[in-house]
């Protein structure tokens, strides 16, 4: 009886030991923005194919949630579509570094019966429409930018996101840069007090609203518009060109910004100057502690980031993201070296 017990116990110990040895798998948890989720999960699974011992788990709970969880250190890294505010940075127990991973853009989508031409918009025009100041499609302000298109006298219905979202952040960040009135009346956040319009949940909610409501205008992520083949308008940049959002016009916006990139990468590139630049573009960031408690995890993440910012960028185009320009990657490599890994 006793020997059996001993045997069982030692067997159990052995099993635990073996399991322990095999479980040298490095598991890292992260949480945050939903917008980069498709490329992040692609990266994590591709990286796991090369480094089978690294398992990175990412929950797309939203930028706000990601910032909160990384601040409370319930996850190792966070991800956000908007840079952390100075107050949020102060609330964290250690210094958090921002690393741009890919680029996204937001595009205006609309539904005007019997108008198939691609419309031109300018920043102030979009702001006035979303402020509820321009209420008819045949308003002279719209007609001026769209000579040759016969626009109906129908009402404009504004559709916006009802859920808090990084997409909204990019959109209103742009509007407040081009319209002082938007800046003072509404402001910038992941959800705002909309002066007019109806709210849909998610990109799919907004696009369903726009598709079904004659006279509607809304905004969705470029990826969403591309994947679902939704027509969208072009937007006038600071140089006066009307640019249609595309992978290359978005990367161009970031390349312009690389020249005066602040060392912490917390920069908005909406309304960026330069030729061929699409003005409603933005980075999305991964958030890491400079001096994390777990140095082994920190080292693994730095290795992963080195891969994602170089090799990993090739997966962007297929998924509809704009890759980072070379100049930004170089700056980030230098910043990655600052993370303490021992």
């Amino acid at each position: 009886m006793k020997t059996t017990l001993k045997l069982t116990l030692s067997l159990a110990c052995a099993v635990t030991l073996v399991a322990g040895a095999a479980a040298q798998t490095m598991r890292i948890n992260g949480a945050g923005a939903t917008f980069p989720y498709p490329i992040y999960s692609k990266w994590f699974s591709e990286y796991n194919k090369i480094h089978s011992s690294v398992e990175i788990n990412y929950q797309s709970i939203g930028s706000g949630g990601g910032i909160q969880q990384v601040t409370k250190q319930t996850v190792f890294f966070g991800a956000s579509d908007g840079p952390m505010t100075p107050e949020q940075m102060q609330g964290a127990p250690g210094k958090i570094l921002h690393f741009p991973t890919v680029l996204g853009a937001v595009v205006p989508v609309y539904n005007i019966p019997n108008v198939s031409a691609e419309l031109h918009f300018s920043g102030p025009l979009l702001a006035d429409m979303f402020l509820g100041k321009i209420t008819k499609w045949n308003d002279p302000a719209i007609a001026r930018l769209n000579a040759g298109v016969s626009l109906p006298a129908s009402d404009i219905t504004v559709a916006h996101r009802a859920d808090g979202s990084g997409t909204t952040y990019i959109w209103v960040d742009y509007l407040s840069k081009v319209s002082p009135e938007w800046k003072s009346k509404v402001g910038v956040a992941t959800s705002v007090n909309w002066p007019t319009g109806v709210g849909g949940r998610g990109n799919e909610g907004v696009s369903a609203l726009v598709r079904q409501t004659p006279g509607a205008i809304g905004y969705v992520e470029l990826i969403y518009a591309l994947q679902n083949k939704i027509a969208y308008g072009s937007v006038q940049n600071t140089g006066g060109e009307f640019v249609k959002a595309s992978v290359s016009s978005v990367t161009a916006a970031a390349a312009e910004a690389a020249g005066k990139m602040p060392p912490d990468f917390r920069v908005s590139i909406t309304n960026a100057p330069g030729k061929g630049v699409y003005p409603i573009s933005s980075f999305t960031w991964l958030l890491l502690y400079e001096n994390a408690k777990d140095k082994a995890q920190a080292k693994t993440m730095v290795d992963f980031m080195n891969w994602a910012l170089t090799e990993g960028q090739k997966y962007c185009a297929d998924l509809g993201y704009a890759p980072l320009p070379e100049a930004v990657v170089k700056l980030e490599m230098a910043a990655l070296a600052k993370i303490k890994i021992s």
Partner: protein
Amino acid sequence: MPKSRSRSDFLFRIGTGTFGVLLVVLVCAIGVVLARQSVLSVQKFGMNFWRTEIWDPVAGEFGALPFIWGTLYSSVLALLIATPIALGIAVFISELCPAVLRQPLVFITELLAAIPSIVYGLWGIFVLVPAVRAVETSLPDAMRQLPLFSGAPLGLGMLSAALILAIMVIPFISSISREVLKSVPAAQREGAYALGATRFEAIRAALFYARTGIVGAVMLGFGRALGETMAVTMVIGNNPKVSVSLFAPQYTMAAVIANEFAEAADDLYLSALVETGLVLFIITLIINSLSRLLIWSMARRATAAQEPGVAAEGAS
């Protein structure tokens, strides 16, 4: 033998008793957590939170009136639509329906309750909203002048929300009403017939006899409508403005919490959202208590009036 039986009885009582107490503890715990996490917002806004209409995350100003209004208005409208239909279904199934049809009908009404609310929401966006828009646009201009039908005919808005909520609560009200009608003693109906009542009058007597249970069923539907989130947010238009217009896009408490909680990063904003949850909790509590009170007082009057009297009164 008797000893062991009394022991198992005792254990059984302890076991089930624990579950009962657990439920009470759970509800209290939810209340406490909601109250604690909303302290910041309660201190800052006080009663103004219930009274003001501005919801501005950028400026940090929060008033829940549009959400409270939207929740109550949509739920009441939904009940106004659903109650007669659900009662009709219940009466038909329990009193008039041919036996062959009964089981399939019961099955189908209960199936409605099993459909996930996101499916209702999608159906709402793609089928119901365009249909409602068509009805709204075809309304004569004279009627559009009325406050009840003012605003742009978007399809999206209070009317769509009320309709989808009505469809969602019908199975609850009709299933329970049916069970209640089934439990009306046969003597009630026989008595009515014996007094020369027509079929309609006999059914009316049965309905009257079952009225406390039916009120309970309606209140259960009300509770369900108050808390419904996903389907409502997909069709209501999510615009926090108080309006009596059925065409106006509005917003509900459950919807704003679901929509904004994930991205709410600063403390006051989070606290305001939690307080919205607390308000919903309190309103649900009040409504449930009132309905208990109503049922209780109806039941007391019924016993006081004595049953034969009730049947005669109902059949007359």
